[in-house]
């Protein structure tokens, strides 16, 4: 069994310095790794990233993160990424990381993701250049997630997790105004997860959403935005299943 701690949307700044560290210091007792689901800062400044870095440096469990839209606001996402990596975190954008949990190899594929909406009410690649680019960005993020998950499958990871900031499914947005769903996630992420296969999908972004959801392919989805979980992090116990073959989705392959 893998113990996965996760939280997103911690929105740190100088006035919250050190507030999460006491809880994070308990991680080695209850978790094998910590996932950070984006929006780690408020405005994406290097100063705020430094606060996050101090919060996660030397925690005793591996830290795997994606950035969120807030982390892009100051247009310094590369510097924010560098600060977090310097503190020991894996920061993923269309990439993957493999960490050890006992004898198990845990693969995490990550992307910020983007909006566009969900099946039946989604944006199309049509019209003004900015509209087309909106949808293309979402598609690029989803493509990167799918390729990263497939790579983890080929590498024979015991467990594969999809980590995003934006939501892959509408269920975990329940509580948010329906009108803003297209800005909260995209079905393209869920399609990528179901195509490549994963054991769990974790995201943030929707502060007023709900914790539990599932993709069409049966992959469990958890919205770990801090306002949703009401804690410094949540812990999920994920069983290690016998894999039928590399590259197969857990939901479909092992039931």
């Amino acid at each position, binding site marked *: 069994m893998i*113990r996965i701690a996760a939280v997103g*949307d*911690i*929105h*740190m*700044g100088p*006035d*919250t310095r050190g*507030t*999460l560290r*006491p*809880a994070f210091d*308990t991680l080695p007792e*209850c978790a094998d790794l910590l996932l950070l689901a984006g929006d780690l800062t*408020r*405005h994406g400044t290097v100063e705020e990233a430094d606060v996050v870095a101090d919060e996660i440096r030397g925690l005793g469990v591996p830290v795997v993160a994606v950035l969120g839209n*807030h982390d892009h*606001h100051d247009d310094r996402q590369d510097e924010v990424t560098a600060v977090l990596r310097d503190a020991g975190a894996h920061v993923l954008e269309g990439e993957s990381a493999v960490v050890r949990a006992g004898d198990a190899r845990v693969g995490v594929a990550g992307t910020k993701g983007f909006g566009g909406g969900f099946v039946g009410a989604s944006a199309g690649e049509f019209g003004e250049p900015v509209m087309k680019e909106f949808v293309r960005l979402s598609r690029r993020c989803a493509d990167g997630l799918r390729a990263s998950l497939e790579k983890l499958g080929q590498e024979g990871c015991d467990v594969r997790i999809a980590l995003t900031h934006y939501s892959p499914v509408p269920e975990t947005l329940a509580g948010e*105004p329906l009108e803003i769903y297209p800005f909260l996630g995209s079905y393209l992420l869920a399609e990528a997860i179901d195509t490549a296969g994963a054991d*769990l999908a974790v995201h943030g972004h929707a*502060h*007023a959403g709900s914790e539990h959801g599932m993709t069409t392919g049966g992959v*469990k989805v958890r919205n770990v935005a*801090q*306002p949703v*979980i*009401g*804690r*410094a*992090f*949540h*812990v*999920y*116990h*994920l*069983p290690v299943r016998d894999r039928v073959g590399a590259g197969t989705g857990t939901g479909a392959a092992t039931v």
Partner: protein
Amino acid sequence: MNTQDAGSAGGTPAASSPEYRVAHLHDRLASGELGELGVRVEVRGGAVLVTGTVPSAQCREDVLSMVREELTGLEVHWDIVVSETASPDHAEELS
């Protein structure tokens, strides 16, 4: 082209419409120095409801201060809480 004053044309002056004022508040919360997208502001009946979770007590004060400034004269009810930073007391077993 209509050169009449908004008032004499029978419309509501934009500046006093609660809906537009709430929309402008949303804009200011998001794109101003607070960068706050997690606060919900809704016109409900004759009042405005402000709800959400923010990262710190200072953020809460900053949001409330901006709300007071933008919505002066309107009845405002708020329920803004600060994020909980305690460790979880249980784990979820995923089958």
